[in-house]
């Protein structure tokens, strides 16, 4: 008797990849799915359940279904990929150093001068000066007459 294909295994594994990759490429764009990755965890739970169902079928009814070997490999890979996702999101992302020495609320922000993306040196005091203009920027960026303050955002970079 020809044994039938065991699609739950392959669909499940494909869903592991989708459930993982859709975080950096899609769900990270929306605060509700980024701050806690519930959409990805849901996809991964369904994916692993499908793989488990496929494996059970392969081992309990080997005369009817294929997938003992391929299913085992896919299950190991699926668990590994899921584990890596959980590691990055719930562990690695939280390994930021504390910052006891950064300027506190109420303190004067220490002056600095560093280049902008065109290589021109920019001082903090110049940014706070109402006459600050950058010729190379669109006029709406710094076109106002008065500076009320500055939002300064530090990024991890690699853009």
């Amino acid at each position, binding site marked *: 008797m020809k044994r039938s294909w065991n699609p739950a295994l392959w669909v499940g594994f494909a869903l592991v990849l989708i459930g993982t990759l859709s975080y950096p490429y899609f769900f990270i764009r929306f605060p509700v799915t980024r701050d806690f990755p519930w959409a990805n965890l849901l996809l991964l739970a369904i994916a692993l359940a499908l793989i488990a169902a496929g494996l059970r079928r392969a081992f309990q009814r080997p005369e009817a279904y294929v997938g003992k070997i391929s299913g085992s490999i896919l299950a190991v890979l699926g668990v590994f990929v899921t584990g890596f996702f959980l590691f990055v999101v719930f562990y690695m992302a939280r390994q930021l150093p504390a910052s006891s020495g950064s300027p506190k609320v109420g303190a004067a922000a220490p002056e600095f001068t560093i280049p902008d993306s065109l290589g021109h040196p920019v001082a903090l005091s110049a940014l706070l000066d109402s006459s600050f203009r950058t010729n190379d920027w669109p006029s709406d960026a710094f076109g106002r007459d008065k500076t009320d303050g500055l*939002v*300064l955002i530090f990024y*991890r970079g690699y853009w």
Partner: protein
Amino acid sequence: MAAVSVDSPEESERLRKLAGYSFLILCDDQDELIRRWDLVHAHGGEGGKDIARPAEFILDSTGKVRWVKLTDDFLIRARPEEVLQVIDSLHLSSPPSD
């Protein structure tokens, strides 16, 4: 607003053009500012490079810090709506005289 990262001016300018950002991007490629402001994430970048830990500051026109957000999870940052709300609540156009 101004953004800061440890990327070089060339890399930052490429991003700025590509993404069409109109805000200022400052390039702390010598790690000078993030060291002085204690915002270094040692070996946090590719190849063990030191990068900035994510942080957001709001300064008033006198250069005084009025609001700080230091996240402990790099996936969770200050949201634009949150920053705008804080700016409104701080009444930055009339800084306190203390």
